[in-house]
Structure formats: structure tokens, C-alpha cells
């Protein structure tokens, strides 16, 4: 018996049998070379109106090469999984790509403060919030999908407006007799996950925390891996316990060194706080957003060229040193004395 039903819009859900058939038809089990350029991957796998979920977390290990390319190709009407979507969704909103979002956490940049661009779009009605959810709730949506289940039971969100505005339902648990929250599975149409290394087939290793990427990789219908480095299949097979995402989940592999800039690549390079600071200021007005997009996206042809614009190898070397704790971090937004 259903005790309570959330009023949020259910997005990304399929009947598990329908998705099994889709997987059987669309996810080949043979290892083929999946390498391609980012423009080809976005062209092939991201359609207007798609439900998009990005890997990583906030400003950490985000496939910025994919974000910039989606803006460059002017994708529109995307639905964003706001699973601690921060810099990525802010830019996609600013770039005119996203007009709907399901929110666990968005519109703020953690210590750096609130996001002017994303907030303005929601407050003006340009971007519609389809539903609320918690971080664990979102990740368990992906876990249910990864397990081929229609939902995941959870003891979170009960009794709150977060549940009321979500797409979850509450039933009486037949075992304990207590109310339990059922979180619907979520199969995003397309996901990008940025990794430190993988082979040409898409077998991926990830350094640092996984956040939700283990579940997301197995939930997404189309998964594009962007990677700092391509290694041989022999290297994967030498240490198979390091493989976090197997090839059969992956549809495309895109090699892009520094592909997470200005976000952090754990154990490789730190956040580019000067660049993030420039975005935080630019995001305050529509004109600022337009100038930023022109300077860093539309007027540069490729991500390699963008890296030159932000200061090239010299700047990246500094960010490597900050990541290694051999250079202190600085940030323009700190002049306010924190948040």
C-alpha cells in the first residue's frame, strides 16, 4: 500500500524489462576500439532534449571537455541530473543547453558561494526544477538502475518536503512494518565520466574517490569516457582489480589531457580558482555569460586550444604543484574573507 507519493516529475525511469531489452540490443559485448574525438562523440550520442548526468562531483573530475563541446554544438532542452551538479550545470545553463533539472544539489559552488547564473535562471523561470531529491537518493536511483531493479528502498528523506517534491513513494515495509521510502531507478540517456586512464575499449581505472560513478556508469544508457591518458589492454589485464568501469558499459572513449580543467583532477591537477573566479563574476550578468562563452568556448576550436587560452602548460604546471601541496592555493573569491 502506498502511504505517500512525491509530486516531483519522474524522469529517466524505464520498466526494468524494457531496459533489459534496450541493453541487449544496444550494448555490444565484444571489445572494439571506441576511440573518437569529442565533437564526434557529442554529435553521435547527445540529442536535444536528452536527460544528461555528468560524472565526478561538484568541481572534481568533471568532463569539462564534454561540457564545452555540448555548448559549442548548441545542444538544447537538456534535462540535467543535479547530483551535486555545480560548475557543469551552471555553464550548461549559461550556454543555453539545459532548461530542466532534478535537484539534489545545484546552484552553488560549495565554499565559493552561490551561483549567480544558475539561480537567476531558476528564479526567472527560464530553468524549471522538475523535482527535489537528496544526494544519497540520486545515487540510489543509479544503483537501482545498475542492479536492474525498479526502485531502491531507503530510510532517507522521510517526513520532509524534499520527499514531497521528489518522485519517490513511501510504503509500509512488509518486513518491519515501518514506513520506507522507495527511490525510483534512473537511467540517464547519456553520461560523460572523466577518468585518469583507460584502454581503447573503455576499461577504466579511477584514482581517488568514485563518488557515484560506479553506479552511474552502469545506469546510463550511453556512456562516454573522457580520459587523461590511454593505456594498453595489457596494463588493464595486469591489474584487473583496478578496473572500475568495464568496456561493455562504454560507448565512446575520448582522449583529452587536462580535460577536467578548471575542475580538479585528483592526484593530477588542482582547481583553477582564478578561472572559476572569472566565471563566478561573469555569471552575474547575461552579458558576462555571453563574453565568457565567446572567449572560452565559441571562439576556440578545440579543448587543446582552450588550454592555450587559459595559460597553457605553464599554468597547468602550477595547478599540478598546488595539487601536490608544493605550492599554496590562491583564489580571487577569497578576498571576500571566505563565504
Amino acid at each position: 500500500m502506498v502511504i505517500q507519493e512525491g509530486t516531483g516529475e519522474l524522469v529517466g525511469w524505464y520498466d526494468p524489462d524494457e531496459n533489459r531489452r534496450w541493453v541487449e540490443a544496444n550494448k555490444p559485448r565484444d571489445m572494439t576500439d571506441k576511440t573518437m574525438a569529442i565533437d564526434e562523440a557529442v554529435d553521435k550520442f547527445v540529442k536535444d532534449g536528452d536527460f544528461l548526468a555528468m560524472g565526478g562531483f561538484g568541481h572534481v573530475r568533471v568532463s569539462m571537455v564534454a561540457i564545452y563541446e555540448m555548448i559549442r554544438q548548441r545542444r538544447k532542452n537538456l534535462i540535467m541530473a543535479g547530483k551535486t551538479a555545480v560548475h557543469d550545470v551552471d555553464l550548461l545553463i549559461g550556454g543555453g543547453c539545459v532548461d530542466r533539472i532534478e535537484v539534489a544539489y545545484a546552484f552553488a559552488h560549495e565554499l565559493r558561494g552561490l551561483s549567480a547564473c544558475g539561480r537567476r535562471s531558476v528564479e526567472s523561470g527560464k530553468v524549471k526544477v522538475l523535482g527535489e531529491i537528496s544526494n544519497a537518493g540520486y545515487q540510489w536511483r543509479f544503483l537501482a538502475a545498475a542492479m536492474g531493479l525498479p526502485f531502491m528502498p531507503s530510510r532517507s528523506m522521510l517526513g520532509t518536503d524534499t520527499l514531497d517534491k521528489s518522485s519517490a513513494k513511501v510504503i509500509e515495509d512488509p518486513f518491519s512494518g515501518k514506513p520506507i521510502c522507495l527511490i525510483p531507478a534512473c537511467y540517464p540517456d547519456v553520461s560523460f565520466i572523466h577518468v585518469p586512464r583507460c584502454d581503447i575499449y573503455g576499461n577504466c581505472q579511477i584514482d581517488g574517490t568514485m563518488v557515484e560513478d560506479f553506479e552511474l556508469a552502469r545506469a546510463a544508457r550511453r556512456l562516454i569516457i573522457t580520459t587523461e591518458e590511454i593505456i594498453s589492454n595489457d596494463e588493464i589485464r595486469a591489474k584487473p582489480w583496478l578496473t572500475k568501469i568495464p568496456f561493455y558499459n562504454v560507448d565512446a572513449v575520448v582522449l583529452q589531457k587536462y580535460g577536467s580543467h578548471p575542475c580538479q583532477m585528483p592526484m593530477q591537477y588542482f582547481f583553477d580558482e582564478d578561472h572559476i573566479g572569472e566565471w563566478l563574476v561573469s555569471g552575474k550578468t547575461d552579458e558576462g555569460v555571453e563574453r565568457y562563452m565567446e572567449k572560452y568556448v565559441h571562439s576556440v576550436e578545440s579543448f587543446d586550444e582552450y588550454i592555450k587560452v587559459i595559460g597553457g602548460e605553464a599554468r597547468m604546471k602550477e595547478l599540478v604543484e598546488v595539487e601536490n601541496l608544493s605550492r599554496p592555493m590562491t583564489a580571487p573569491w577569497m578576498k571576500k574573507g571566505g563565504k
Partner: protein
Amino acid sequence: MADYTSTELLACAASHVLEDKKSIFVGTGLPMIAAMLAQRTHAPGLLIVFEAGGIGPQVPVLPISVGDSRTVHRAIVASSMNECMSASQAGYIDFGFLGGAQIDMYGNLNTTVIGEHSNPKIRLPGSGGANDVGSLAQRTIIIMKQDRQKFVKKLDFLTTPGYLQGGESRDKAGLPSGTGPHRVISQYAIFDFEPISKRMRVYSLHPGVELATVLDNSDFEILPPTEIRITPAPTQEELAMLQKIDPVGMVIAKR
């Protein structure tokens, strides 16, 4: 009066609430600082857990994000959100730190929206991991600055559960038994919750603060303390340690 800022006092008071050899789920900003301070002073065995997957780190300097690589520095595990949230749901997390834009008398929090949800005056970030921490940690500690706009009779949006409508309502909703807000720490006082009604009550006054100031700076009626306690002031050692934790002054102003 000793020379310290309200932010420094909040950080020290929050760190004192933490106990050695317990686990703590922390968010960005002051919670991180309080946990790092506790680990470097009275609670070296404090197990720090970050929602993105960092478990048991010895955090070198204040991270910007709960997901950045500082959160796995000399850690026990670089795991995943599923691992941390599942551990929390299974009962392994003793304390969780929370903050918010609004709080009510039962310790419920709003971090989603000011105004109507469908037509917001101010759109805030949403739950993030807050609802999960507020639902699943054994006890939560809430840190927030206090005034009549923040301590409100009715939240614009109930993002994260405290004691819901008070009394037994939290258990009845199906949230894990025996959980809920333990302390609220503001710039004026520390609060606990009266055990039967689950209403917020003054626990201790910060040094030099009058009870009337605490009660006046709330839109709802706060219960008076059962005895007069004074929050210990930050020590020189703690103030010096805070500078080391946040050497570039992201949260703690440079001295």
C-alpha cells in the same frame, strides 16, 4: 574579553561537541574546520567521513570541496558515496554536521528555497547530502548564525528532518529510531532539545552573552536552560591551530 571572532567561537564550540573515537560525517566549511580542530586537539581518534567517499583522512589543509583530493589525504579508504551513505544508514556514523538558511523549533532545516517552491524568491542549493545526514546519522549537530529570519516559526521548505512536528513524529515517519538533532550552535549559544516535546532549548550561553539576546533573536519561542552553563571560550592554542587548518583564510580570517 578574549580576542576572537564569532566564526572562531563557532568552530571551537562545534569541535568541543565532538568526542574522540567517534565517527563524524562532515560538509563544506565550518563543519570541516571543527572536525579538523577536534582531530588535532582532544579527539585524535576522530573518524572523519566525507560524502564523496573519503573515509578516515588526516586532512592536511582545509578542502574547498567535500569531494576534493584533500579529503583522501592519508585516508583509510577512498570509497564512494554509496559506501558512506550506506554506512550512515547502517548506523556507523555517530555525528553529522549540518547548516541551513532557516531552522525551526524542532531542528528541521531549509536549504532549498526562500519563497514558493514553484516560484522562488531565492533558489538555494537543495538538500545535497544534508537530508541523508539529518535522516541517517545517529546524532546531528547544526551550526548556523542566529537571527529572526533564520530561526523561524515556519520553514519555507522542510529540506532536512530534525524532529519534524516534535514528540514521536520523527520515529513515526520511519526515520531510524533514536536519531535526530543533538546540538545547535549559534553565535550566541548552544542549544539542545527537550526530550519529550523535542523543542529547542538553551544549553549554554557563549561568554558575555545575555539570555535575553538569545531568546530575542528567534522568531519562535526557545525554551530556557535548566541550569546556567557558559560555553568555554576558544583558547590561544585553538586559535593558533585554526590558522594552520585554514592557512589562506577561506573561512577563518587571517590574524
